């Protein structure tokens, strides 16, 4: 039994996507495990780029610092490896769709994926291109326990994704993908993350539709009005967090 006097400290770090996770918790849509103390930290919009690894910690500068302090609400101006028992990177600009779109298109065109070795290198390149992911690996290398929940697939039914310049215009055949094909890509990403000491949590299959999209029911509030295919609802976050909490607990027990 965890001690009530020594709660597990968990930090959710991310961009605007963490809002849905917070809402899921405050609205009681997800059951935070007992004896877990959660903080949020991060920055929204372009300010997210002003968070970098410096001096042994993730630090925010400029507008990002102000936003991070507001999100956190406890005066924390940086994240160091020992500050928390577990870091949950949430969203954090690791846009799953940018990897899934071209690869599911490739799969449909060729009837197969490239070799597992090629896919592993590609997944590593895709993930290493993302600064937050690099920071996650750095945190892990400094002994922190890190879980990564990448940005979800774009939402179906919000806007015409087949229109010129939109996602399905570029990757029309990605919508032919089935769960097996998606599983191959998740496997590649989780394997890369594992090699970096990070536990990556795939988007739950029951939230996916049309091959490569998130079900319309998980759109964020007002998504259609503003054409927001990226952000999701609190219910969506609650569903994904169902898969995250056991890992938080497991990691805590393993400590």
């Amino acid at each position, binding site marked *: 039994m965890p001690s009530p006097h020594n709660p597990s400290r968990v930090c959710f770090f991310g961009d605007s996507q963490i809002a849905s996770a917070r809402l899921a918790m405050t609205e009681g849509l997800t059951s935070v495990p007992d004896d877990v103390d959660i903080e949020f930290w991060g920055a929204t919009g372009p300010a997210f780029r002003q968070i970098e690894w410096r001096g042994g910690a993730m630090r925010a500068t400029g507008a990002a610092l102000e936003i991070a302090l507001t999100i956190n609400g406890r005066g924390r101006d940086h994240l160091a490896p020992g500050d928390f028992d577990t870091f949950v990177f949430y969203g954090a600009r690791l846009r799953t769709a940018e990897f899934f779109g071209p*690869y599911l298109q490739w799969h449909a065109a060729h*009837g*197969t994926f*490239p*070799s*597992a*070795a*090629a896919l592993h*290198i590609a997944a590593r390149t*895709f993930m290493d291109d993302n600064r937050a992911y690099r920071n996650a690996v750095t945190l892990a290398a400094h002994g922190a326990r890190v879980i990564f929940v990448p940005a979800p697939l774009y939402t179906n039914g919000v806007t015409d994704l087949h229109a010129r310049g939109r996602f399905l215009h570029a990757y029309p055949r990605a919508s032919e993908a089935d769960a097996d094909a998606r599983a191959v890509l998740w496997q590649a990403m989780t394997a890369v993350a594992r090699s970096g000491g990070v536990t990556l949590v795939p988007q739950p299959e029951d939230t996916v539709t049309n091959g490569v999209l998130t079900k319309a029911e998980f759109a964020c509030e007002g998504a259609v009005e503003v054409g927001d295919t990226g952000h999701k609802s609190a219910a969506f976050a609650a569903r994904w967090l169902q898969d995250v909490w056991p890992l938080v607990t497991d990691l805590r027990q393993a400590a």
Partner: protein
Amino acid sequence: MHPYENLGSHAYWKTAVAEPGAHGLSGLWTPKFSIKPRHRIVTAGSCFAQHIGRALSDRGYDWTDCEPAPPFLRGADARGLGYGVFSFRTGNIYTPSMLRQWLELAYGIRPEDPEVWEKEGRFYDPLRPAIEPGGFASADEMWAARRVTYAALRTAVETAQVFVFTLGLTERWKNRTTDVEYGLCPGTVAGTFDADQHVFQNASLRQTDRALNGALRLMRAKNPRLKVLLTVSPVPLTATASGAHVLVSTQYSKSVLRAVAGETASHLAYVDYFPSFEIITHPIFRGMFFAPNMRSVVPEGVATVMKHFFADQTRVFGAPKARKLQPEQVAAPVGEADVKCEEELLNAFAA
């Protein structure tokens, strides 16, 4: 009056070679057909063909990659897996018979042989054992990758306007029972050498000629407008299994390939021969285009070859109109070490 009167200066050694010297040579090639930047060009063959593809691409020519690297596989990672090296992911095709074999397999003319090489739980393609340096995860994965390459090869043949093929070797290893020609000798990179099954052949002039012309006929049947530019790799053999000295074996191989290329170009209107072999290896250049190992071709050699290529095209057909390039169409510079030469793996066996 006799035939040697009134010939151009190019016909006399004194005026064409001795007086201008190595750096003053011109008119080495009188191309049969124009190769313009807008023409869709594909390249295949031995190591040296990689230089030609990249040089054409760098000059804004439409060198076409029919099997581009999958997304997020870039630069050295992609080349390490055989992407972007030739116009399709066959790896080096050293012999004309290997080209014919690839084509026959891609078009289903030749039955697929189920042979797969296994080493320490990884699977290797006998036609291109070095294409996945760590091997494939399974035989199924290997066959899936092979089918992708077949499709790319068909696309290349059927959509190209110019097919550049560099002949590299006459020495080859085959399976005695199935007649499959291997990319490399079994047992060197993967596979297990079996003296009863694996047979060495050093192709004769006639065999080489038959193989090359068979490949050309097949390609023209699929694309009657296709033009073919032949070159011979100036790169010597890494090793020979012929029993002769490697220098003598090299000379045999190159002589056969050069003769077949020349003979083929002389009787087929759609085939031309470009003398990159002569530019690199001729004594007039005193070996200056070889690295100290007298095998690798230095960048200056490639540059000189391509200078002659473009100059002679311009001399005969006029200056080409530049093609507007998209930023992603500009190839990254590549060093000598980036040229993929699987045959060099045999160096590991040098005492």
